[in-house]
């Protein structure tokens, strides 16, 4: 789901391609085991899409109100964060059966994994369960980030933070976790966690706080830029990781009124990602139900495609940097988009309120 994760998947794909004398992962179909995992926030299942056919090949029941999803770099496991269980659920990649449900400190949102697959970071949102001043319902002090050790499958630490956390990204080199303290609490900061100590290394005041984010890397693999949406604006900001300065602010070009999706808020633009080849920033707009592309590193606008579904709320990119799969939350579909031509290839029916999705290489 993250660039570094996609790169790991790309390496696996490369090995497969060499072994079978095929050229590219998508051209290698049907032999490729590349899959898109699509969660359904309003449903009780997850869908697995084969990008070779752009069809659902399997639906796994028993995942009520799943929020985040990430696959182990080797594909051996899939991890889901469940809002109904307040847990991360580890699933075996071969049997697709649950291995363990790992209790968390609160209500989980997005999750991410380190490049070595050893640690998972779970965003913990504020939980509104304090009725001590009823009829006011207040949030409990549960925001932060939970750290999970994937060897023992246990939560090893809760990093308490001001404000609830909705989105986080492990950097491509695995050294840091970029955290948007955006889920209530008026924190108005971005926090950066050092994965060696699992403590907050530094913070950057941002109003509104960033969420979601995407991370690009330099040639040496270290973190270059953070691209951050903020829920309020239909666009994103560019943050230089080394200098900790906010630079460019970009507003997504508008589209014609009839193509707009009026139900954009609370986060009118929610989802952006850097292609694994680091050449393109892909940004979606829930308010416009559209996908935009920008060239990198110059952040120059390339184009837009309006989607067949409504309410673009999340996306994932294929390891070859050629396609995006966009979750259309309001119309229960996932769009497959060719990034070079900006053509929608398919609109794939899935479950209720498709949300986060991820790349998975079947073992």
């Amino acid at each position, binding site marked *: 789901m993250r660039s570094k994760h996609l790169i790991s998947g790309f390496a696996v794909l490369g090995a497969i391609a060499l072994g079978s004398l095929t050229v590219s992962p998508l051209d290698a179909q049907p032999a490729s085991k590349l899959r898109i995992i699509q969660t359904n926030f*309003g449903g009780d299942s997850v869908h697995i899409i084969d990008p070779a056919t752009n069809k659902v090949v399997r639906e796994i029941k028993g995942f009520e109100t799943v929020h985040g999803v990430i696959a182990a770099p080797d594909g051996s496991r899939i991890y889901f964060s469940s809002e109904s269980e307040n847990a991360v659920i580890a699933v075996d990649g071969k049997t697709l059966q649950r291995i363990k449900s790992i209790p968390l400190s609160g209500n989980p949102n997005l999750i991410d994994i380190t490049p070595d697959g050893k640690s998972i970071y779970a965003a913990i949102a504020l939980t509104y369960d304090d009725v001590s001043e009823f009829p006011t319902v207040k949030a409990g002090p549960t925001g932060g980030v939970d750290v999970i050790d994937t060897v023992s499958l246990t939560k090893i630490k809760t990093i308490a933070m001001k404000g609830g956390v909705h989105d986080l990204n492990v950097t491509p080199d695995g050294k840091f976790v970029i955290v948007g303290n955006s889920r209530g609490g008026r924190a108005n900061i971005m926090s950066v966690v050092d994965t060696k100590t699992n403590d907050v290394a530094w913070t950057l005041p941002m109003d509104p706080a960033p969420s979601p984010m995407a991370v690009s890397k330099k040639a040496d693999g270290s973190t270059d830029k953070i691209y951050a949406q903020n829920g309020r604006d239909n666009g994103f900001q560019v943050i230089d990781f080394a200098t900790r300065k906010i630079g460019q602010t970009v507003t997504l070009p508008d589209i014609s009124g009839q193509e707009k999706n009026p139900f954009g808020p609370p986060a009118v633009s929610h989802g952006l990602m850097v292609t694994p080849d680091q050449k393109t920033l892909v940004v979606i707009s829930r308010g416009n139900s559209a996908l935009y592309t920008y060239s990198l590193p110059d952040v120059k606008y390339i184009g837009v495609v309006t989607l067949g579904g409504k309410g673009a709320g999340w996306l994932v990119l294929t390891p070859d940097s050629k396609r995006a799969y966009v979750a259309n939350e309001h119309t229960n579909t996932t769009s497959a988009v060719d990034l070079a031509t900006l053509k929608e290839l398919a609109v794939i029916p899935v479950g209720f309120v498709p949300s986060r999705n991820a790349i998975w290489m079947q073992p």
Partner: protein
Amino acid sequence: MKWASSLVVVAASLVGISVGSLGHAAAPLPAAKAGVALDYEFFKTRVQPVFLLKREGHGRCYVCHSNNNARFHLVMLSPGATSWNEAQSKQNFELIKRVAVPGSIDSPIVMHPLDEKAGGHPHHGGGQQFESQSDPAWQTLKGFVLGEKVASR
């Protein structure tokens, strides 16, 4: 649908909220009908179970609405409990008045989870919970805002 359209405009214009928060800007509620009152016993025994019911293909209402800060909120169940106690039910009854207007089926608790194709709102964060107005659970929500009492069923 005119009301739904106004909801769209209002919701789209009120974006000065905390980022990523589910505290959606609240659209104005429809007007209450004189002489209609919400019935607590009907709420406790008929409506609350709808929020806990696991329906095929859907997430339960309770999962999101006990966690987030949406206008419609339910108090957390006590640890190990499968339903609310009396004190909690009374709190839920107070909270649901934020989205249940006596005498109005345009109340958000009725229209928000109903599929747009069946006359409901265009978008609900938990999906189209009720595909048609003939769904018994939706009928229960409708009956509640229209002042239905336990004895009348």
